[in-house]
């Protein structure tokens, strides 16, 4: 019984890394541009469909690289044409904008591919199980987590150890002072949006082999990402990391305790409790500009 419980906790922890991948981009776009991107889940779906279309030609691993790049290119266009008009405006406008964008992406996918889910087989190289002592786990999921951890570590490195990251962080803290120093935030905003949406698409490619590919697959993921960002605190990198792990652990804990039907409710309850104690989320006190 104890080993089952521990297995569930470990699985919850690993689940958390996957949530982290999607929530991170959402948090980045909000931190720098003040845009609450409700279309994040739709870009996740777009990534999965790109994998579905590209894989027969360039394989799963090729799609893992190319699909996020295509999504990032789309994101640059979206950022230049749409997002630029709503930076530092009332978040309500960007909510409406990105909600419409999500609908357009989903409906376009539905129109072209139909509502019927598409089959996407897992690459043979990643099939099978891995034995970690008593804990048996899916090889594919370990790969997924490795990619997620590497991506999150990469984003951390980019933000904390490079000149690009320093300017982005400065832009998050005080964009006006950055302007007086003669540094334009525009190209940085484009890059951050492209990066964030590229990561969402990467998560979509990673999910395609273990979930049916259909136009609404991003809705559940998008909702979970919002919960993670809200718990962690809008704009906080480490807040997202901690919240994603907490959400995964709570879910695993509930299922481990045999209360699976309450697992989703428990996540919302966690959000409720965190917001009750810390209205800005766990580590959200540093950004006050968008509140």
């Amino acid at each position, binding site marked *: 019984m104890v080993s089952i419980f521990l297995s569930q906790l470990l699985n919850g922890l690993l689940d958390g890394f996957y949530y982290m991948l999607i929530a991170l981009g959402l948090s980045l776009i909000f931190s720098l541009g003040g845009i609450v991107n409700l279309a994040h889940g739709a870009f996740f779906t777009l990534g999965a469909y790109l994998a579905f279309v590209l894989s027969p030609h360039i394989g799963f691993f090729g799609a893992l690289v190319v699909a996020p790049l295509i999504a990032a290119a789309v994101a640059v266009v979206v950022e230049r044409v749409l997002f630029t008009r709503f930076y530092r405006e009332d978040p309500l406008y960007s909510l409406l904008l990105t909600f419409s964008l999500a609908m357009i992406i989903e409906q376009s996918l539905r129109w072209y591919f139909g509502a019927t889910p598409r089959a996407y087989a897992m690459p043979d190289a990643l099939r099978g199980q891995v034995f970690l002592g008593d804990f048996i786990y899916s090889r594919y999921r370990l790969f997924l987590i490795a990619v997620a951890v590497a991506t999150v570590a990469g984003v951390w490195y980019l933000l904390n150890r490079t000149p690009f990251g320093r300017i982005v962080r400065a832009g998050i803290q005080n964009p006006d002072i950055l302007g007086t120093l003669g540094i334009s935030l525009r190209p940085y905003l484009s890059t951050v949006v492209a990066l964030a949406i590229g990561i969402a698409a990467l998560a979509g490619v990673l999910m395609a082999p273990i979930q049916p590919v*259909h136009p609404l697959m991003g809705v559940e993921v998008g909702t979970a990402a919002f919960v993670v960002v809200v718990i962690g605190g809008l704009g906080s990198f480490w807040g997202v990391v901690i919240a994603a792990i907490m959400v995964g652990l709570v879910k695993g804990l509930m299922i481990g305790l045999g209360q699976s039907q309450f697992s989703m409710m428990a996540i919302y309850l966690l959000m409720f409790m965190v917001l009750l104690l810390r209205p800005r989320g766990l580590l959200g006190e540093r950004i006050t500009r968008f509140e």
Partner: protein
Amino acid sequence: MLKTIGRRQLLKTGAAFGVMGLAAPSILRAQTDPIVIAHLTPRTGFLGPMGEYAVMGVDLAVEHINAGGGIGGRMLEVIKEDSVNPQTATTKAERLAERRDVALIMGEISSASALTISQVAARANKLFINTGANSDTLRGQDCNRHMFHVEVQNAMVVNAEGNYLLNNDMVKDKAWYILSADYAFGHDLRNGALAFLERHGGRTVGDDLIPTDATDFSSYLLNIRAAAPDVLISNLAGTQTASFFKQYAEFGLDIPLAGFDYNTVIAWAIGARDFQGTWPCVWTHQVKADGSQAFAQSFMEKYGRPADNQAYLDYMGLRVMADAIGRVGGTDTEALISFLEDPATDFDVLKERRGRFNPANHQLLQEVYAVTALDASEVQNEWDIFTTSDPVPNADQPLEVLIEDAVGGACSF
């Protein structure tokens, strides 16, 4: 001549012709106006993929009926609406039921929506033909005199699948782990499965209710592996089933897998590599009966892909109702109810045996099938990833055996 009729008689006759003259356009119109049927089904949300096929089935049926001269010379027209959830279904059903030109309502997949539509239809004294909701309670404690069920009820698939499991020694003294979608439909199937298991001497080692929006099953799969059941039963629903199958294969479990909810569109979404087990189904494109093959072929010609079970149900449901309206000679609700309830009334349901409605609960009694996944190495194309059994029950058994032991309570009209 005028003299013999008389002035008073002439006036009377003239007035009668006058009235007829005024009424004639409406009489003529009544004979040529299209027969309008409202079709409600979820086309978005987790039941959307099935709804998409339902609409394709309806469109094809309209095409075929009108190409054959309509119903008694009147063309058929169908108003289609997306009933994404029970609230929307209610609002739209109310709007449609209020229309005088709508003869009846059909469709739906969600049992919760079907229940509310049936209530709306009953208030408006119109029929509701359920083509996709399976819950036993709709045929039991929540039954409704105005609701007829073309879709099979849960007891029918539990009995059909249960028969297969019994024959394969997967019930008596065996341990089942049951996963069920946490809403009315899943609860209903779960109750049916538990009752069946108890009747035949099996036991459970796990019984999880899964939230309908859950897409990650890793935690459940770890529990299942730890419980080491003899059989794993899935009563999940919609696209959730596809996620579960893919992850079941991903985790490399080799516990025999079976269950009581099956949709061909979901099997196709899982794909040949990961689809496995044996499942009950109301129809597949592999059913050998001539009528089925003719329908499957025309669907393929129109849409470039085979029909699934939901497309069949909506196609056949509309054909059955067109047949009924034609034979009754109109759309009068009471006349239709009496006709459909008559034990002597039967319909061509494109299968070996003709189907008929059970007057006690308005369920269309019809043959069902067992679908068995092919090994990936035997699969020739993306559609034929399974084989379809001969009709269940056997020809020497009455269709009524399929509705035995339903768990939805007693129906009282």
